[in-house]
């Protein structure tokens, strides 16, 4: 269910001058992943381009229709077109994934910089707290947060963001620590640069660039987590078209109307797989190889 952030692969050689394969030709997998993501982005921005149906229009007479040429993914218990609901559900699902990752990154930047650049006691405190959070599974951490704040789209997004933050924070901290001691930082000191200039121009960009690549991987994970929370009824709630919520609503009819659960599940897998695949190849392409 979870796509874990690979903290190991982010580390080695991050400082070294690197030969990248940024310019290499795309692989079949990369083309597929980008195509799938582009379609999802279109669905999120302009869902009406992809389906003529209204995702909320009830039509009880057409309830529980099997997939057909008219209703590609069938209809649900209220006669709503499942394909339309999938398409319209892309926007909230993607926004939750991206927003959660962004929240996680911002939190991680603050914590990582405190630990990586701050005095030793601060580093110690932040790192220990991070380790405690790290010990808890991310989804559990999100659940704890929701227990405190109550369910809803906004809180579940923030919850997922908080849950991803410790991982990113740890990487940012170790990157900053490594870059801080790099010879080119010393060279900048010898050239007479101030501490702030060095931080802004050399330390931060070199330390943080790899984290953004990693965040692409994190979006897929966040989508899955957000859908999980909605499935548990803690995020988006019916009748809103959101994949996790749809999955939950279709659960009641799983023995009679398989299309109500299979398609939302497929879309979650598709979105997560595509963004993970893209993240992986971005990572490989910017991977800094020891020269």
């Amino acid at each position: 269910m979870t796509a874990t952030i690979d903290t190991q692969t982010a580390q080695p050689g991050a400082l070294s001058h690197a030969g990248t394969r940024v310019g290499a030709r795309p692989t079949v997998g990369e083309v597929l992943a980008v195509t799938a993501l582009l379609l999802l982005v279109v669905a999120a921005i302009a869902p009406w381009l992809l389906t003529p149906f209204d995702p909320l229009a009830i039509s009880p007479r057409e309830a529980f229709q099997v997939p057909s040429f008219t209703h590609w993914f069938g209809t649900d218990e209220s006669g709503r077109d499942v394909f339309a609901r999938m398409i319209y559900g892309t926007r909230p699902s993607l926004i939750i994934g991206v927003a959660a990752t962004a929240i996680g990154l911002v939190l991680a930047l603050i914590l990582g910089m405190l630990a990586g650049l701050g005095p030793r006691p601060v580093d110690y405190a932040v790192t220990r707290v991070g380790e405690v959070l790290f010990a808890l599974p991310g989804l559990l951490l999100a659940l704890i947060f929701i227990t405190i704040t109550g369910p809803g789209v906004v809180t579940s997004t923030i919850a997922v963001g908080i849950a991803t933050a410790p991982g990113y924070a740890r990487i940012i901290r170790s990157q900053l620590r490594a870059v801080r001691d790099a010879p080119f930082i010393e060279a900048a000191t010898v050239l007479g640069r101030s501490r702030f200039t060095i931080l802004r121009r050399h330390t931060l960009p070199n330390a943080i660039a790899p984290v953004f690549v990693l965040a692409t991987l994190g979006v897929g994970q966040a989508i899955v987590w957000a859908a999980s929370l909605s499935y548990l009824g803690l995020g988006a709630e019916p009748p809103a078209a959101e994949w996790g919520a749809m999955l939950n609503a279709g659960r009641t009819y799983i023995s009679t109307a398989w299309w109500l659960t299979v398609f939302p599940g497929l879309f979650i897998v598709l979105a997560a797989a595509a963004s993970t695949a893209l993240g992986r190849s971005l990572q490989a392409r910017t991977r800094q190889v020891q020269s």
Partner: protein
Amino acid sequence: MLWVEDLRVTFGAGPRQVTAVDGLSFELEAGESLALVGESGSGKSVTARSILGLTGSGSRVSAGRLELAGRSVLGLKPAQWRRIRGSEVGLVLQDALVSLDPLRTIGREIDDTLRLHTSLTPAARRARVIELLEAVRMPDPEHRIGQRSGELSGGLRQRALIASAIALNPGLLIADEPTTALDATIQAQILDLLGGLKSNGTALLLISHDLTAVGRVADRVAVMRAGRIVEHGPTDRVLGAPQHPYTQALLDAVPTGRDRGERLSSSEPVRPLSFHPADPATATKAPDVVLAATGLTKTFRLRHGTTLTAVDDVSLHLRAGQTLGLVGESGSGKTTVARMILGLSAPDAGDVTLLGAPWSTVPERDRRSRRPLLGAIYQDPLSSFDPRFTVEEVLTDAVSLGTSRRGREHRARVTELLDAVGLPNALRGRRPLHLSGGQRQRVAIARALAPGPRIVICDEPVSALDVSVQAQVLDLLSDLQKALGVSYLFISHDLGVVRHMSDEVAVMRHGRIVETGPPERLFTSPTHEYTRLLVDSAPRLQPADKDTT
């Protein structure tokens, strides 16, 4: 013992095929030693590897003849190669720290070969291991046998590696850059040790980039370039009266025994920089001593509560337009001195003054405005550049004193700098990663000069470079000094380089300066015993060579 005829090694296929070795022929008899000499990329290591079947996947080895002890080794299977390696051919690599397993004792490393290839009992093997360690003159072998490679010094590690290579009495020993990572005094010992093995009838194939080092042990020298042998003959003749212009150029590039000011390469002299304030005329009016370090001391706290005095009461005086050479072996404290002078680490005692004003005692904030007076060049230029920057960005940043990275107004100065250090303008858009070692060091020199410094600290600026590239960089530094009147603190472990570059030399050992003086006196009639030892171990060309140049 070894007969190689028309050896060819290629990598890759189709249009990307690279020929590393191109029609090489030589032979080597028992008890004889041949040195393959060449610069990086000349194919010398690949040649050595093809004799061991270690060229790796993607390579194609072909030869008219490749015979080892009378048997052809062309197209052997991996299992057959394994039987030959160790028993018939031993290999000693450059970096013993990498070649030895850090988790195993050296006793076990050497024992491995014996266990795999012989049927000796454990007790007999142990006796043999000690015997081998004695043969490589490892001090206290009974004790060392239980130590891991990390506990040994570089020289002792290299001895252990040689012991494991000769464990089975191979007829041929291949040593690939066996002394490159070692200090001069240790280097001399290891070379003598390798030379001594010949008397047991072992043939020695020595691979090196260092002409002066091979002269010490090799009977014959083959000079390689671009996969071919350009000159081959007895050591005395090749080093003393080279026939081929490339050999001549290589020998000319060796700074050892060459007077200060004598050019080592055929590069063009440089023009002065228009914006550089310190031209020779003003330099003479400047205060005589531009940089003074007095009583510098630095102590590091180690684990277990012990302390190490890395620098102990060091005083140096650098005069305007001159070069002060600081020579010493690894761990002598040279770099710690450089760091204190650069204001990167605060001395525990003593102080540094720059142009007569306090430097080490004031806070960094007050130093910053005077930073442009002091430049630095490092041993590894690549790591001193921000990996995200192109050459142009590196230089623009330096020229603009950190105010911009891509500013147009600085283009002309960057062009002038590139020109001054002899770099083609076309390289300005590249990243340093994609430059050669010599080009990178030129960029580093350009960056150091960009703010118009009066003093440049050069910490081992040429030790990672090939001898011909080293010659060009040394010439460049000399030319720039002449044109700009900058002063250098020139730090190196290489006596020849320091002697060639310096007006005054200080010899460092264990954190102290043991002797100072003008290079001629210091190197011809050293008074301190350590200086004498250094001078005696320094590799040098045959005396015959000095007569011809």
